[in-house]
C-alpha cells in the first residue's frame, strides 16, 4: 500500500493553540505512529479516516485522493474503505456481538442480511472465536473479547486499510502481549495494510515495520525496521525501544 499524508490542522481550545503539521509517504504495510499523548497521533488517524477534515494538505491511498484541500476534495468516511478500531472499541452497546459484526452488511430499511452477508458474519465469528458469544452484548464481554469483536466488525467490511488507535491500551498487561501476537498472525492472514498509533514502546517491537514518531504536532522521525539504537534528537523512548525494554 502506498500512503501519502500531508496534514495541517489548527486546533483552538480555551485559548490554547495546537498545530498538527505532518508530511509523510510510505509504502509499508505496517506503519506505527508513536509519540507521547497529546502529540497529535489520534488527530492524524482521524484525518486519515475522514472523521476530521484537515485545514490544508492531501491524503491519498494507492494514488486515490481521499482529501485535497486545494481541490476541495474530501471523501466522506463511509466511502473511504478504511476500517477503524477505536481505543475503547466503540462497540454499539445496543447490538449483540453478531449484530455489531453484521451492522455494516445490512441492506435497506428492513436491516436484512443476504446469504453472502450472513456467511461473512459466520466467518468472522469463527475466525475470532466469538461463536459462543454471538448473542452477548458488549457490556458482557471481557476486554480481549471486545477487542476481537471490534476487529471482526472492522474487517467484515473488507477495508483496504485498517487504522488502530492504541489497540492494546485498554487491556491487562498479560493479555496485551498475547493479543499482540494474535494480531500479527491475523495481519499476515489478511494481508491487510495497517496504521497503528501507540505510546507503548512494546507495541513497536512486535508490530512495526515502519516507524513514525510525532511530538508536539510535528513529525520528528521516520524510519524503517530495524530501528536505530542511537537517536540524535532527544527521543529517550526510542532508545528504550531499540534496547528492547519498556518505557517507564
Amino acid at each position, binding site marked *: 500500500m502506498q500512503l501519502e499524508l500531508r496534514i495541517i490542522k489548527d486546533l483552538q481550545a480555551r485559548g490554547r493553540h495546537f498545530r498538527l503539521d505532518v508530511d509523510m509517504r510510505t509504502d509499508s504495510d505496517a506503519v506505527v505512529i508513536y509519540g507521547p499523548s497529546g502529540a497529535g497521533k489520534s488527530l492524524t488517524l482521524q484525518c486519515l*479516516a*475522514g*472523521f476530521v477534515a484537515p485545514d490544508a494538505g492531501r491524503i491519498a491511498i494507492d494514488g486515490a485522493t481521499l482529501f485535497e484541500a486545494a481541490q476541495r476534495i474530501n471523501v*466522506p*468516511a*463511509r*466511502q*473511504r474503505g*478504511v*476500517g*477503524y478500531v*477505536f481505543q*475503547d472499541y*466503540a*462497540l*454499539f*452497546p*445496543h447490538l449483540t456481538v453478531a449484530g455489531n459484526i453484521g*451492522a*455494516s452488511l445490512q441492506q435497506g430499511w428492513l*436491516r436484512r442480511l443476504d446469504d453472502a452477508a450472513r456467511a461473512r458474519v459466520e466467518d468472522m465469528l469463527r475466525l475470532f472465536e466469538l461463536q459462543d458469544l454471538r448473542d452477548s*452484548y*458488549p*457490556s458482557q464481554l471481557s476486554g480481549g473479547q*471486545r477487542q476481537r469483536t471490534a476487529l471482526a*466488525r*472492522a474487517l467484515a*467490511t473488507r477495508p483496504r486499510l485498517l487504522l488502530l488507535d492504541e489497540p492494546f491500551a485498554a487491556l491487562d498487561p498479560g493479555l496485551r502481549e498475547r493479543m499482540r501476537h494474535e494480531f500479527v498472525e491475523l495481519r499476515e492472514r489478511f494481508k491487510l495494510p495497517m496504521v497503528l498509533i501507540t505510546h507503548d514502546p512494546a507495541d513497536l517491537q512486535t508490530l512495526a515495520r515502519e516507524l513514525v514518531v510525532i511530538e508536539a504536532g510535528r513529525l520528528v522521525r521516520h524510519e524503517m525496521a530495524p530501528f536505530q539504537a542511537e537517536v540524535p534528537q532527544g527521543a529517550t523512548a526510542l532508545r528504550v525501544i531499540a534496547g528492547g525494554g519498556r518505557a517507564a
Partner: protein
Amino acid sequence: MIGDATVPLLLSLKVAGWATLLALVAGVAFGYLLARVRFFGREVLDAALTLPMVMPPTVLGYYLLVLLGKRGPVGAWLQESFGINLIFTWQGAVVAAALVAFPLVYKAARAAFEDIDTNLERAGRSLGFSETKVFFRVTLPLAWHGILAGAMLAFARALGEFGATLMVAGSLPGRTQTLSIAIYEAVQAGDDAAANKLVIIASVICIVVLVAAGRVLQGGYRRAFRY
C-alpha cells in the same frame, strides 16, 4: 364507577396523546439540532424553546389566541387555505398542550443526544453507514430511553394542562372540557363528589406515568450497557 368522568377522561387522553406525539417529533428534531450543530445564538434559541416550561400557561394561551385566532397571522392562513379553525376545538387544545409539554421532550432529547459517545457515530461512518443510517441505527436507539422518559413526562404534563387549554379551547362539555377543566367546573358548581372522583383519577394517572418514566430511564443503556 367512573361513569360521567369517562367523557372528560377520554378527551384528556386523546388530547394528551396527540400533544405528546407533536411534542415528540418537534422535541427530537430541535434536541438533535441543538446537541449537534454549533451556530450563533444557539443558547438563546435554547432559552426560547424552554420558555413554555416557565411561562404562565395563561400567557402562552394568550399568545396562541393572538396567533391562531381568526385574525391572527397563522389562524387567518389556516382558515383561508384549509378552512381550519383551531379556536374552541379539541385540536386547539392539542396545540396548547403540545406547546406546554414540548420543553420536557426537547430538554430530555438534547441531553440524551449530547450524552452519546461521538465515537459510536464515527464507528458507524467508518463502517460505511450513511448519515441517515447513523441516526436511525446508532444515535436514535442510544438516545431513545432518555427521549421516551421525557415524552412520558410530557404526556403527564399535557394531561394536566389547564391554563393555556382553557384560553384556546374553552370549556365545552364533551368537546373541549378536559379532565383538569372538568375538575375546576365541578368545584365551581359545588359538586364535590364529581370533583373528588376526577381528582383521584388524575392523581393516579400521573403517579403511574411518573413511575413508568423512572423505570424507562433506569433500564436505559446508560446504566445497563456502559462499560
